[in-house]
């Protein structure tokens, strides 16, 4: 068994930088945004989350346990790489993004900046 060999070498060589777009859920609440992305087969050490300017990129390599002499006969996931980018808005705090991964689902939490948090302003009676 070799760890690194992908099932889809052919597709990889024809389109070196090709990547599939993972399905995501994005939910916003008062204090920030929660993003979940399906990254099946991507081990934690091959998963990358980075913020550059206002762009948040998630990407990862799909690593499968594949025998040397295996011939693919049916392929639906044809590119062993997943990538997707998002534009962050100004009130989101890119420095405090937290990430966790469980069973191939990446969960990101992007909090809103302090000043963007909802505050209740007391109305005084004059």
């Amino acid at each position, binding site marked *: 068994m070799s760890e690194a060999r992908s099932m889809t070498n052919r597709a990889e060589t024809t389109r070196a930088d090709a990547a599939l777009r993972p399905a995501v859920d994005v939910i916003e609440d008062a204090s920030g945004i929660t993003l*979940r992305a399906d990254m099946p087969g991507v081990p934690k050490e091959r998963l990358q989350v980075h913020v550059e300017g206002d762009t948040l990129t998630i990407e990862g390599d799909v690593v499968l346990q594949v025998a040397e002499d295996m011939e693919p006969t049916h392929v639906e*996931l044809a590119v062993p790489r997943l990538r997707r980018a998002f534009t962050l808005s100004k009130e989101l705090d890119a420095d405090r993004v937290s990430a966790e991964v469980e069973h191939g689902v990446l969960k990101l939490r992007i909090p809103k900046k302090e000043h963007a948090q909802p505050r209740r302003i007391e109305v005084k009676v004059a």
Partner: protein
Amino acid sequence: MLLHAMYPRDLFAEIDRLQRDLQQAFDLSPSIRGLGRGFPALNVGSTPRSIELYVFAPGVDPATLKVQLERGVLTIAGERAAEPVAEGASVHIDERFAGSFRRVVTLPDDIDPGAVEARYRDGVLHVSVGRRAAAQPRRIEIQ
């Protein structure tokens, strides 16, 4: 059926694959759904000793996964629970599949029903089905 008998079994899979490859060569943007058609996506490969199935089912509780082999038909079923959305929160993108799923695969005749192994790791269910020793290619010595 006669047509099937005249051609090697894998030819049809080959044609299917060729078609997909061609389609991908022209269509550089991958599917907006990311993993193609339906959930979970499935890759199948074969070696002289086994049939290997890779089911891309992230975020599934392994306890809910059912792998069943009956008369050469392998069924993979499970359920992915919907993530709860807190009150007052708004959903901007909702693409991830939630609910129960099932994939059914007919395996070749030479499999060994006693040699099935299934592992779930990083959201991928890997099922390995052994082939009977008699079916494995052997080199015949020439006297």
